[in-house]
């Protein structure tokens, strides 16, 4: 059974159609990159998969997770089932420490999976270990979630959360944006360490740069709300060389042919 199946996904925001019918199938252990220019709908796709209720999903559309329809499942239940999104713009939570936040999250997920809850002291040790691995100062465990963190630190913190929550499907929404090369490498290493035959990744990015470090199995190009091209890793290299314009032309040509 496929880990994720997206069928004819159409999504609107405030009446405007953003995703115009996406079909995508992801198997266990696969890493898919979704690339595309600004405004193509990449982040919308990430938000809809996470369960953001501000997006209107067409009643005909289906999102299946291990064959189960999760199209209208609330975000917390998707997270407990194993879907995790590293956000492009992680929010700050003043007054709540990273430890307390993630400890609560992990225990919610463990409870759902019928696992015993983890003691906070044991948890903090694990958290600090993961922070070290991903290059985030372990003293940040006591600091409020993302408060006063630099852009790069916020992104690293998202990867720390992913490492702690051990999702089955991880969606990285432009995790590379705003990262310097060292941060990019440590984030990529963090992801690569987690790759295994049971865990899949969707990596959303503008640039091929991140994909040098996290080699995807498949690359899809999203343009104007549709996947206009899919291929293997070489497609990313091609995009890096040619940019997106040649695809725009191709797809627009296709569209005009179709209309005719």
């Amino acid at each position, binding site marked *: 059974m496929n880990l994720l199946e997206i069928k004819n996904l159409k999504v609107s925001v405030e009446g405007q159609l953003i995703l115009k019918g996406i079909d995508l199938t992801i198997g266990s252990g696969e890493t898919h990159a979704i690339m595309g220019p600004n405004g193509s709908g990449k982040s919308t796709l990430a938000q809809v998969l*996470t*369960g*953001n*209720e501000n997006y209107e999903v067409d009643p005909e559309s289906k999102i299946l997770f291990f064959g189960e329809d999760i199209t209208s499942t*609330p*975000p*917390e239940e998707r*997270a*407990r089932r194993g879907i*995790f*999104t590293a*956000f492009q713009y*992680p*929010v700050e*939570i*003043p*007054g*709540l420490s990273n430890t*307390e*936040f*993630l400890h*609560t*999250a*992990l225990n*919610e*997920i463990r409870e*759902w999976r019928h696992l015993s809850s983890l003691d906070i002291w044991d948890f903090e040790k694990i958290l600090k270990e993961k922070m070290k691995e991903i290059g985030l100062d372990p003293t940040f465990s006591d600091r*409020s979630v993302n408060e006063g963190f630099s852009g790069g630190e916020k992104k690293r913190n998202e990867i720390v*959360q992913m490492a702690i*929550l051990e999702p089955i499907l991880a969606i990285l929404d432009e995790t590379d944006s705003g990262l310097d090369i060292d941060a990019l490498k440590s984030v990529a290493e963090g992801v690569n360490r987690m790759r295994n035959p049971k865990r899949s990744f969707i990596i959303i990015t503008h640039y091929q740069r991140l994909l040098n470090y996290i080699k995807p199995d498949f690359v899809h190009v999203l343009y104007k709300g549709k996947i206009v091209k899919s291929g293997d890793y070489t497609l990313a290299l091609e995009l890096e060389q040619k940019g997106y314009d040649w695809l725009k032309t191709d797809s627009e040509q296709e569209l005009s042919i179709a209309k005719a």
Partner: protein
Amino acid sequence: MEKTHIVDERKLNLLEIIPYTKNGHVIPDWWKDITLDGKNAFILLPIPHSKMEGWRETNLSPFFNPQRKWTVDIKKQVHREHIPEIINKYFSAHILWENGVVTMDENLIDLPDKIIVSDFKEILASEHEELLKSNLERDKEPQHIFEALSEMLFYNGIFIYLPKGIVIDEPMNIYIMSSADRQDTIDIPWVLIILDDTAQASITLNYITHNTESASVWVNAKTKIVLGKNAHLNVLENIQGTEKTLRFHSISAGLDKDSSLNYNSLHLSGRFLRSEINAEIQGENVQCHINGLTLNEKNHFSETQQQIQHLKGQSVSRIHWRGLGREQSKTVYRGKIYIAPDAQKSDSIQQFKGLSLSDGAVIDAKPQLEIYADDVRCTHGATVGPPSAELIYYFQSRGIPPVKARSLLVRGFANQVLADIPFPNTKEFISPYLIMSL
């Protein structure tokens, strides 16, 4: 022809109360004068109403309801059984007041010999009577009838005096309990805290009430703080009440050169609270910090009025207040920083944040600055709103359901002001109240 003053009939019941008996002490004239001056002011001052500046949000009808007959009920002893366990756990009692009577557990705290902790009456005819007198007598006219009432019904109080250079490290815990057994009862606790030059202390003021179902308690509290040069005082005020508790608290503080006051408040419950604090920076290089948290629920009313007056320059003031309102509660914050023309190089930050946890909860905030000096650094800000939907979504995306997300957000919201409160265990103490606040 002499003008006759017609007394508002809603005051008549209060004017009939005779507050004090001699109780074995010889009451000096200056003491009687306080009550007489208070009575005159009480007669002359109007009952505030919603058209008066500073009273627009305050509905005083529970106090001045013609159906009520207020009385004073001076206790013979303190009833410790009425003290909530949680308060005793974190702030075990050293000095206890109940309706005018004071008891001390001196064994519980290791106090230096020279420190005076007493009730006012014990000070009469002692070497400190003059100090008591000079600090109890008015330095300005009462601003409204609640202040006048504190004078009119003045009966007793708690006197704390640290002579020059005396330092106490452990917090001194004071309980001010007001109770109503049979009838609607009014209690007038006065607290006078004087720290002479270079003295240092840490004090908790725990206000609690006890009442039977049929009786309301009106607590009309007055606190005066006097800090000498380079004196340092930390206060944690913990105010609790019942469905039948009406509170009016007035706090004034005078801060001399190089002194510091760190005044922290937890306004936790009760039907009605109006708390006014007025701190005067009277010397240079003073630090005045006011931090507080209001938790408000049901149809309760909680109002905080604060004023810090920089009369001398080169001093620092900080106000950090937060209010959490749920159900149909109304929370009002009024803060004002005044900088006198001579108070150059004053540095002041005033911040209020309100979190409303239901559509019916009203939070009204008005921070103000009044600046007459040109070389100062002053900022103020206020934000009020419900928990952010974006934040709740972030919690959800990590597996945390909205209800738990809100509870963590509430804790985080409170934690930010609790982090500024320099009393140990405040976070632990407040934790169960925050759960109730959801």
